[in-house]
């Protein structure tokens, strides 16, 4: 039992890294654009399928393939923003953008069904089958690699946000769009690039998700997005640091419940969400967390 619990905690923390990365992209887009990108889940699946195509048809290693899939997802993100989000203005922008993202998600899902069918696929490489022996239990290498990738990507996100001029512009836009515009920031460009970055992380997320989970099909997007939404709300929308904590907390709790109640483990996400919101409607870390850093 003790080993099982230790294993669940380790797997939860390591798996949480990837969710943290995907949620960070989602909450970044929210912070800058005031948009909930409900297409994030299916974009992760799309990223997974891109890695799948590269590894199965072109025999490119999954990790090397990221050099292609990350820029590709960035371009897709910018395109979605430019074509479908940017034209939406006016009073009902909030709900309109959310519905537009939902519609984009449906189209992507339909296209993926058409291209790949509904069979589950999973990504494989030598490190998805090997494992290491620590603390008396085996952990698949892909968990460690996925966690490492997530840490690197999140660190890169932080460096971009807090050490570059562009990052300064992004944070300025997050705080006050009108003022950012007044001091000469091209808010449209910032928004497009942010949407691109928020989408690009799904390439990494999709690769790790596809390699470490039991497989995925075009329908997996719903499961992903519901978890990601729970994470960013629990964290407090717009808080990247909060998203990291919330992601690790949620996946660990899920892994623990999974030992006893595999069918209900996902419910932990929603239950935590409902409890937090009744106690603290602004989420654990509120919106201020981003500004305070």
């Amino acid at each position: 039992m003790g080993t099982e619990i230790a294993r669940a905690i380790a797997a939860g923390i390591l798996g949480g890294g990837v969710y943290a990365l995907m949620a960070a992209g989602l909450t970044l887009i929210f912070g800058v654009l005031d948009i909930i990108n409900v297409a994030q889940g299916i974009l992760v699946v799309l990223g997974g399928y891109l890695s799948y195509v590269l590894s199965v048809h072109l025999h490119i290693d999954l990790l090397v393939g990221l050099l292609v899939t990350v820029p590709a997802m960035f371009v897709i993100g910018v395109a979605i923003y430019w074509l479908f989000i940017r034209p939406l203005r006016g009073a009902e922008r909030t709900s309109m953008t959310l519905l537009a993202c939902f519609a984009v998600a449906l189209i992507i899902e339909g296209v993926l069904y058409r291209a790949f069918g509904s069979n589950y696929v999973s990504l494989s490489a030598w490190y998805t089958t090997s494992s290491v022996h620590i603390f008396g239990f085996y952990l698949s290498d892909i968990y460690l690699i996925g966690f490492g990738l997530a840490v690197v990507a999140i660190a890169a996100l932080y460096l971009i946000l807090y050490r570059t001029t562009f990052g300064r512009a992004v944070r300025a836009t997050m705080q006050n769009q009108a003022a950012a515009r007044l001091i000469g920031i091209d808010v449209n460009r910032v928004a497009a690039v942010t949407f691109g970055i928020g989408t690009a992380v799904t390439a990494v997320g999709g690769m790790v998700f596809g390699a470490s989970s039991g497989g995925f099909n075009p329908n997996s997007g719903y499961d992903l997005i519901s978890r990601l939404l729970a994470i960013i709300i629990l964290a407090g929308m717009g808080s990247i640091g909060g998203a990291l904590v919330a992601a690790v907390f949620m996946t660990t709790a899920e892994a623990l419940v999974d030992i006893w109640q595999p069918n209900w483990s996902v419910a932990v996400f929603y239950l935590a969400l409902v409890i937090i919101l009744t106690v603290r409607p602004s989420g654990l870390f509120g919106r201020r967390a981003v500004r305070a850093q």
Partner: protein
Amino acid sequence: MTEQLGAEAPLATDTIQPGTGSLPRTRRRTLALVGVAALAAIVVVYPLVITNATATNFGVVTLIFVAVASAWNLFSGYSGYLSLGHAVFYGTGAYFLCVAAKDWNLSGSAVFWLVPLGGLAAAVIAVPLGLVALRVRRHTFVVITIAFFFIAQLSASNLGVTGGSSGILAPAPGSWDPATYNNPFYYLALIIAAATVALAWQVRRSRFGLQLRAIRDDEDRAAGLGVRAMPVKLAALVVSAFITGMAGALWVFFIGEAFPQFVFDPLFDLAVVLMAFFGGLGTVAGPVLGALILEPTQLWLNLQQSNSYESEILFGALFLAVILFLPRGVVPTASEYAAKLRARWRRSREDAS
């Protein structure tokens, strides 16, 4: 930035006041009455004239969606709280009917009495959900409703009472004449739909409706002016859930079986929202028009294509087109256009004289 881009600004749909056109108000009202009467006559005789089973089948489902889209609009369109979780209420009504009929050994016409009870079950569920979700606004509210949707789907797949993922059979229908089998469903759906539209119309004119729209335009200001926001929002949600639950109960009795993934279908929520948006959010006629146009279209597309993904792509593309090119919906856009035409006509007449 949230504040600057806020959705609290008033919806443009309300800027068109009735009676601002050149036609006298009484004549416009007569025209509208004639139109409504004609539509009512058509839908009442429809299953008597067209006896084709597919056509009446379409009729039943379309009327159910008229009721659901109007009920959704009564809450979300009027209050501005966009719900993507109405499938929870639809599914609650549906499962209630199946489980209650099984427990009480009901079949045939007696099952129809369970339809309002299904609505009641959904209304009861709506109270705690509303008390939690209505504490937050805008995006967070939408996402909470999505979370409730997933909780409901998960529960339906795992609880014993719902039959889990293998589903549950709806009660056996009566030994009705196959030629007119759809008619009892059709007329009950028609009654629910007509009552919902009448209610939506009454609410829009009432003090309650004004309070809802004040909340949509600026909740804090509305509260400052003495609107007790929480009870008002909750009441609208419960009424909306009641109707949606009745519709779900009737629907499941009609199709005969309940599976978690069909009863709690994310496309259901999106379809209902699209109907309201397509016709015109917050208007009375909008959701009706949206349901009357979109639901038969979708049913027909499903018949044409063997692959669900093709209708999914089409559906998404249609949704994007509506949002990008017709963001305020058919009814407000059309009435604005008509007002513009009338103004031009009047001006040219004044110039001539």
